[in-house]
């Protein structure tokens, strides 16, 4: 069974249509990347899956269940999202402990003390950070908290919206290694949005290249590494990435 199946997805903001007939398939346990330049509609696809973008047509099927537009409590336990900016995604007046306990309170899960402890350990956050406020944490630590918040409900699918692009290079590597380890340990499925091809080759199995709201090519990471992408735009993207390895 595929974890996520998207067919003919058209998403619009108001009157303007952002994506046109998007379709791809993510197998369970797979790590799939959406790449493309800014404005190509990749983040919008994530938002539609999560339920934040509400006006779309087509079909989104997650673990065999069709999604309806909007946020759904049941789906929330299966699928969570990690945002791009670790500075904006944590409530400034809540401690790490309060941020991590909130999803448990929403879903009426007991034993929050032990669960918070466990999830902090699994994302590599020391216990002494537990009652700190976000402004007392570094960017990398904040992103770990954001990942922990996404994981605390034990979802099977994680939507990652450029999870490392707001961090500096050494911290990026830490977070990528963490994501890789978590996926191995917990058997997670990733759908990741990025414009960073080295990140894709490090973390993902397959990728879809998007341009102007359309998927131009779906390929495996091996093809990407061997430089065997077919579409002219994808080839341009790889060339550009090779000549500017850090961006």
């Amino acid at each position, binding site marked *: 069974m595929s974890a996520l199946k998207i067919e003919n997805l058209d998403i619009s903001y108001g009157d303007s249509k952002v994506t046109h007939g998007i379709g791809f398939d993510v197998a369970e346990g797979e790590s799939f990347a959406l790449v493309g330049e800014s404005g190509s509609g990749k983040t919008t696809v994530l938002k539609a899956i999560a339920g934040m973008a509400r006006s779309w047509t087509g079909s989104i099927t997650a673990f065999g269940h069709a999604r309806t537009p909007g946020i759904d409590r049941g789906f929330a336990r299966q699928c969570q999202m990690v945002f791009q900016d670790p500075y904006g995604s944590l409530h*400034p007046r809540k401690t790490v402990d309060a941020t991590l306990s909130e999803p448990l309170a929403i879903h009426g899960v007991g034993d929050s003390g032990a669960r918070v402890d466990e999830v902090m350990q699994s994302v590599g956050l020391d216990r002494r950070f537990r009652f700190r406020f976000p402004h007392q944490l570094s960017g990398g630590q904040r992103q770990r908290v954001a990942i922990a918040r996404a994981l605390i409900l034990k979802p099977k699918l994680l939507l990652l919206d450029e999870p490392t692009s707001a961090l500096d290079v050494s911290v990026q590597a830490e977070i990528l290694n963490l994501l890789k380890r978590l996926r191995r340990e917990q058997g997670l499925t990733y759908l990741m949005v990025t414009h960073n091809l080295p990140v894709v080759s490090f973390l993902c199995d397959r990728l879809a290249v998007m341009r102007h709201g359309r998927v131009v090519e779906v390929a495996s990471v091996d093809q990407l590494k061997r430089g065997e992408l077919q579409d002219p735009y994808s080839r341009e993207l790889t060339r550009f990435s090779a000549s500017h390895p850090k961006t």
Partner: protein
Amino acid sequence: MATTRDWLLDDSPSSRLQARLGRSYRLSRALARNPLAMVGAIIVLTLILVALFAPWIATHSPIGQDLANRLKPPSAENWMGTDELGRDIWSRVVYGARITLMIVALVAVLAAPVGLVIGAVAGYFGGWTDRILMGITDIFLSMPKLILALAFVAALGPGIQNAIIAIAIATWPGYARIARAETLTIRNSEFVAAVELQGASSLRVIVNHILPLCTSSMIIRVTLDMAGIILTAAGLGFIGLGAQPPLPEWGAMISRGRSFILDQWWVATMPGFAIVIVSLGFCFLGDGLRDVLDPKHGDRQ
């Protein structure tokens, strides 16, 4: 002492309580470094203490008449002199602190939560909810506060309770506007999106995640508004629609002293001083709180 301080300022608090106390401690230290705020805090604290201990501070009864000693100038016996019925003005000003404090506290308790909730709901849901709620707010906001309060007191009948209700009705729209503006800036942030994605109900998002971020600007605004509330209450008292005789309300006292302000200046001046000092105190305190609490001044705490 040093250990308590270290415990409060610990970089890695070990419990929710410690984290919260540490934050309050940092805020109060920042407040203590601001001299004007401290002056304001001392004035407000004095007002509260005077109101609490009025029977022990007052030298005479606030309503006991002594017609033989009418309009006496300030002396050792009557520190602020006596009014036209021979009542001791010092004692009346002291008891008046109770009325002022009651007005201010009740208006804050009635108006601030209403404004906060209406503003947050309008800002969070947007669309028609926003348009309707803000339309109502604008109707109230379009009329000057004192005039609106006057109209309500005229309709409800004079008296201190009605004055409080009228002032509260005239004050909440300002708070609703602020709460809505704050909510709009928070509404689209990623941390709100994150809790929504976790399946939180609108009620939970508003109460647990949006309101806590609106409260600091609300506290600042309410404190700054206190001066205006005191003046409005005094204004209502002055024209005879607020507190009724023989209640020692400061505005009403000024109004009685008006007839002999040239010959017996102290009758109107003493309660006037009280109003000015207390209003200034609230203004200073509000300014100081803004410096400490306003998130736009950076996350120094």
